[in-house]
């Protein structure tokens, strides 16, 4: 035990001292903020002015009303261009020239068909932007809708009232309690949890592998194994590197907590007005979520670190190890690829399966937990399966490790590995 502690301390101290640790500790949150903030900023930036012409060939001047209602929507500036039916193509050609000169973004061609059959045409340089097209079609649909109701003799005041837009406020219910987190907030939380788990397990797992390979290639492992049991060395290494991960999370968690606590100040510094109540960008993080996160991080990390260590012991160079580790990395990538599926339907069959199967559960379960209510029985069976897999994998991995660290030359085949596990 004392000797294992010596290994743990070496792995921890040597890592925390490196530039790599300091840089990743500082850059980690910045990257994460960038991951979350950049899409938001991009979305805001994308809302630049769109200049649109409305070629109105209707007999009812519907185009004038459409242009007016488009003009009222902030990003769009619309102008009404009454045109006889015969001159539509002529007007279209001259507008196309303006689009080419980037004076105009696009134009709408409205005829009597628009209200009767709902047929309109839009030509522009921004047709490939789904966001622009969605805004446009929503506004046009609304205008056509109003026009039809008016034609049917519905009172204008009634139409205006019917048009009051919907404001759906989403609040997450967790632990039978309504939290202050919005739906968007818990999505961000799930996203951050996924990123931390995936990066954490992968980076620190690969770190363990690198450490095994380093000891093997430098041959110092032979000296170490003459005074330490292979398992002491392996366990000390995994615990020490994992400690670095927890230490890094602790630093981030503390900074994050302070930041959330002082969010008004942060918003003021950023020159933003403080939105009423809690904000979407700062979800509430319940203690239970932190506990689930840490528990799954530790178990998942141990599971993958053991596999990475075995891979490291099988190979005799860093490059070879990285190649051989692809299989392990794939297991880790699987729940990440399917993450959107989990978030879209956290109680669906796929989400449940991924959060119970041991190799995907370390990432899938905490993500699910952040996104939805998870029944206690599922958490229990997930943890049970994970613990059982951890025991089995550690048993096999430590046997491969024991033989592998002293074996040089050709990489072992599957049959060799089976023999190693048997004879170790």
């Amino acid at each position: 035990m004392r000797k294992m502690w010596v290994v743990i301390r070496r792995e921890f101290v040597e890592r925390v001292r490196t530039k790599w640790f300091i840089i990743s500790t500082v850059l980690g949150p910045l990257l994460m903020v960038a991951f979350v903030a950049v899409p938001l900023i991009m979305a805001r930036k994308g809302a630049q002015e769109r200049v649109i012409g409305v070629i109105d060939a209707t007999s009812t001047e519907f185009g004038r009303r459409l242009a007016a209602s488009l003009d009222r929507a902030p990003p769009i500036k619309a102008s009404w261009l009454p045109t006889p039916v015969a001159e539509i193509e002529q007007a279209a050609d001259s507008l196309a020239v303006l689009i080419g000169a980037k004076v105009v973004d696009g134009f709408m061609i409205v005829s009597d068909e628009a209200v009767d059959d709902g047929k309109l045409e839009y030509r522009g340089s921004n047709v490939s932007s789904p966001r622009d097209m969605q805004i446009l079609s929503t506004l046009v649909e609304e205008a056509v809708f109003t026009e039809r109701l008016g034609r049917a003799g519905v009172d204008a005041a009634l139409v205006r009232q019917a048009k009051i837009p919907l404001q759906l406020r989403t609040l997450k219910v967790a632990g039978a309690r309504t939290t202050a987190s919005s739906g968007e907030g818990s999505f961000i939380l799930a996203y951050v949890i996924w990123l931390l788990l995936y990066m954490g397990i992968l980076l620190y797992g690969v770190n363990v592998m690198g450490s095994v390979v380093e000891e093997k290639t430098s041959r110092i492992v032979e000296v170490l194994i003459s005074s330490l049991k292979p398992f002491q060395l392996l366990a000390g290494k995994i615990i020490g590197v994992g400690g670095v991960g927890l230490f890094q999370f602790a630093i981030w968690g503390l900074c994050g907590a302070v930041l959330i606590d002082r969010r008004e100040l942060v918003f003021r510094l950023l020159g933003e007005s403080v939105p009423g109540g809690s904000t979407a960008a700062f979800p509430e993080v319940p203690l239970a979520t932190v506990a689930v996160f840490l528990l799954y991080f530790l178990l998942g990390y141990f599971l993958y670190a053991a596999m990475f260590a075995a891979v490291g012991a099988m190979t005799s160079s860093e490059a070879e190890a990285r190649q051989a580790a692809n299989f392990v990395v794939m297991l880790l990538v699987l729940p990440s690829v399917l993450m959107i599926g989990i978030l879209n339907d956290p109680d669906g069959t796929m989400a449940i399966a991924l959060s119970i199967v041991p190799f995907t559960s370390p990432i899938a379960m905490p993500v699910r937990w952040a996104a939805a209510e998870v029944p206690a029985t599922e958490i229990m069976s997930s943890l049970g399966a994970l613990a059982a897999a951890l025991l089995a994998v550690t048993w096999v991995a430590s046997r491969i490790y024991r033989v592998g660290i002293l074996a040089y030359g050709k990489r072992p085949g599957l049959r060799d590995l089976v023999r190693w596990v048997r004879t170790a």
Partner: protein
Amino acid sequence: MTPDNVVVLEGVTKRFATHTAVSDLSLVVPRGSIYGLLGPNGAGKTTTIRMILSIIVPDEGAITLFGATDSGRDVSGRIGYLPEERGLYRKMRVGDLLVFLAETKGITRGVARAEARRWLEQLGLGAWEHQKLDALSKGMQQKVQFISTVLHRPDLVILDEAFAGLDPVNAQVMKDTVVSLARSGTTVVFSTHVMEHAEKLCDAICIIARGRKIVDGRLADVRRGHGGRHVIVAVEQGVGSAERVLTDRALVAKADTYGQYAELEVAPGADPHRILEALLAAGSRVTRFEIAEPTLHKIFIDKVGADTASALANPGGDHA
């Protein structure tokens, strides 16, 4: 209580998937001796050493260390080990590395730190304590590794291919170190495939080939036990010119010629002086004529056969 024999192997066998590395090996290392484990490359020396250190476990047989059956790992605090392939953590600071390795031997931090400093000063590396190992030259790294082998004051030091890869100056330093360790009461076991090293240093030896023991015991006993009278001759024109005498089976039972000199086994009943006479009669200008005990080299070749020993006949320039 310190027993007289530090290491005892009884009937030790180790098999790997494709071959038997060590077969039914028994040997005894007396306390305070310099013990040579000799044999060509691939003879099983490293496997034997690894079993003594419990890096690998023998399939059969028993290993006794310091008179008890505790495994090498249990008593690792009393053993210093320098493996054949040298290597350390290249990114660690020299001082921290020595402290870490000493701690794995059960030495407390404070003591290890002080001892490391003392040794570094002694070997002229005092200024490098806080430098990363990367910054050191290869020779300095070897010194650091040597310090890590002896820092915890072991009773038994095991050096695998102690002289491999050393230049003549460092080889001499290593020889002096082995002698001074032995003088201070430390038992030294070293393996080598260069018989000359063993001949100069060892109190006792064990020669192994293809995993089997060929001969072992005190060096003097091994020589005496080999029997036969031996003559070493050197001829000015080269021993090739004395071909006729050396192949005369009435005088010479067996001749190993090395160009500049030859080691001869005198035929039973023949008088060594008759060989000298025959050489002079044949017109050879004899520059050396010595009636000697057989060299380890000669013993080895006689026991194992020249093909196995070919690795020994050409030990390679860097091992000289």
